[in-house]
């Protein structure tokens, strides 16, 4: 097993191939059913559903990011929505600059909310966001920098377990409050919306939406593969050892803090990418994305799907969010109770999550 390269080992695994095949067929079928199949056909997929799938798959990337650090390294981050939102804001800033003079106030440079606040110049941190490549770099760099700083402070002081989780919640809440303020320069509680185009493509077009869905699927597949390869390497075994016996791993000579820090940063980057793909597909980003409850929901997705499996986390994200869409439309007042019931039900009856059902069903009789 150790003789194989990480890539060969990855592709020899049936689960991995199955997961990628599923994603690939979704990426091919959804645009065809949406654009090539006539609306009258029963298998036609409405643009609304395409956007919904795109949104779910962004959440799946976020869930994989959380599963990587929680399921494999035991770091329970209750603040991953922060990195998701920061990636989203970076992309949102680019989309705002793309609006140009087509805004309500028609200012060539300033976004509407700045005109409204009587600002006469662009704040320095908005420079460069008129270029897509710059925004893309920021999508990666900003979450990575925050995770790096936060993780460095936390891990070097050996803050672990529930204390770490509480600190990440505090971080979410602090950023939520900060982004609510108008003078932060991020649109206050309204955030960014009314996006027109991305790289010159109209965001309202079906083809643009299909392309965004395909991009999301590609990033999801790449994130899954990268996490799976990390988990399958010797580093992955070190990371799981840190989860189960941190001081023992340190005693073997592994720089535990450095492993945790880089894994946390990598996970934050994945969350940021998910946020950046999310914003053009849902058409809005505002401070509520930072809400502490969002980060907790991600953990529930991972728990429902099956911690430490990656594909389970992705499936959990899609399933729980599908249920959320269903409940909040059909009977909104029931949703939080339903979520609570799912959480308790899974914890009691499916401690391995839905992914735990798979080996149980496959076990030879």
């Amino acid at each position: 097993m150790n003789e194989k390269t990480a890539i060969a080992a990855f592709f020899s695994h049936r689960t991995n191939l199955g997961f990628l095949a599923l994603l690939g067929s979704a990426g091919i079928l959804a645009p065809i059913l949406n654009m090539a199949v006539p609306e009258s056909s029963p298998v036609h997929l409405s643009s609304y559903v395409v956007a919904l799938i795109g949104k779910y798959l962004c959440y799946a990337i976020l869930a994989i990011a959380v599963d990587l650090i929680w399921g494999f390294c035991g770091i329970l981050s209750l603040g991953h929505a922060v990195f998701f939102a920061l990636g989203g804001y970076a992309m949102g800033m680019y989309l705002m600059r793309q609006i140009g003079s087509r805004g309500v106030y028609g200012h060539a440079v300033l976004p509407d909310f700045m005109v409204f606040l009587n600002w006469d110049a662009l704040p320095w941190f908005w420079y460069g966001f008129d270029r897509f490549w710059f925004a893309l770099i920021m999508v990666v760099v900003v979450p990575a920098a925050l995770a790096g700083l936060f993780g460095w402070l936390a891990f070097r002081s050996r803050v672990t377990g529930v204390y770490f989780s509480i600190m990440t919640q505090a971080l979410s809440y602090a950023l939520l409050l900060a982004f609510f303020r108008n003078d932060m320069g991020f649109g206050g509680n309204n955030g960014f919306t009314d996006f027109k185009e991305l790289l010159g493509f109209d965001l309202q077009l079906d083809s643009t939406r299909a392309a965004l869905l395909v991009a999301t699927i590609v990033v999801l597949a790449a994130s899954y593969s990268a996490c799976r390869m990390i988990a399958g390497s010797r580093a992955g075994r070190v990371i799981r050892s840190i989860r189960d016996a941190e001081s023992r791993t340190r005693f073997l000579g592994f720089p535990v803090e450095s492993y945790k820090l880089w894994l946390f940063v990598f996970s934050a980057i994945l969350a940021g990418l998910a946020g950046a793909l999310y914003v053009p597909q849902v058409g809005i980003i505002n401070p509520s994305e930072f809400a502490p409850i969002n980060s907790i929901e991600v953990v529930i997705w991972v728990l429902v799907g099956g911690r430490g499996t990656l594909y389970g986390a992705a499936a959990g994200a899609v399933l729980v969010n599908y249920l959320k869409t269903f409940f909040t439309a059909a009977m909104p007042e029931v949703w939080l109770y339903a979520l609570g019931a799912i959480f308790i039900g899974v914890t009691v009856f499916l401690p391995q999550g839905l992914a735990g059902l798979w080996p149980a069903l496959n076990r030879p009789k």
Partner: protein
Amino acid sequence: MNSPSPSTNLAADTDDRWRQLREAAVRRKVPVTLGKILYLQNLTVSFDGFKALNGLTLHVDPGELLCVIGPNGAGKTTMMDVITGKTRPDEGKAWFGNVIDLLTLTELEIVQAGIGRKFQKPTVFEFLSVFENLELALADDKSLWHTLVARLTRAQRDRIDEVLQLIALDDKRTVTAGELAHGQKQWLEIGMLLMQDPELLLVDEPVAGLTPQEIERTGELLLSLAGKHSVVVVEHDMDFVRSMALLHDSTSARVGSLFQLSFKTPRRRNSACQARPFG
């Protein structure tokens, strides 16, 4: 390198042991010109007024197997904690070789300097296989960037095989460590210690909870390590220490409140077992 299987009669294998001693001297990184691999002087540790260690002085020769015996609470584990940097003494000195002041190093640096410790409770990684446990313990670049892409070299693989033979878990290499019997976990942990190739091994209560057969096997294993490594065994099971003494053709053991028992490698075969009171 032919490591003697623990079941062979080691005392008879004098030439081989001499060769191993010479090899150990050649590859030794830690300068020991004063002749001691570990030198503890006047160590005092107190916890809230209780003196866990009171002026402990102890030294270990290169290649020596030293047993430290004493009842619970005599300060055996505290001594290990001081050597490995987990506890800082109130006063005293702790030197590794004659240039490394252990009291100035962090736990990680002490491991890297070449001191390995087996804890009282076996703490193998239960969800990894026996082989993977040894792989993680391998003396290799431990940084993330290396382990992300690392593959075992032939020499490393051979080394793991060699240790698997030594700890008699060769047929269990793919078994998850959590499924091993208690005694096998203890051996695996000793094996993991060996993978780090330390100059000095600290072995804390290796036979707690083992069956008599396992105890005997552990004794042979530890004796087979002396010469190549310096070994300090902390134990309160007198039967075990006595059986080690018997295994090594030793003659006498003296019982005090807390004392050391030293098995010298062939140089001093005739006085193989020494007892020096301390503590």
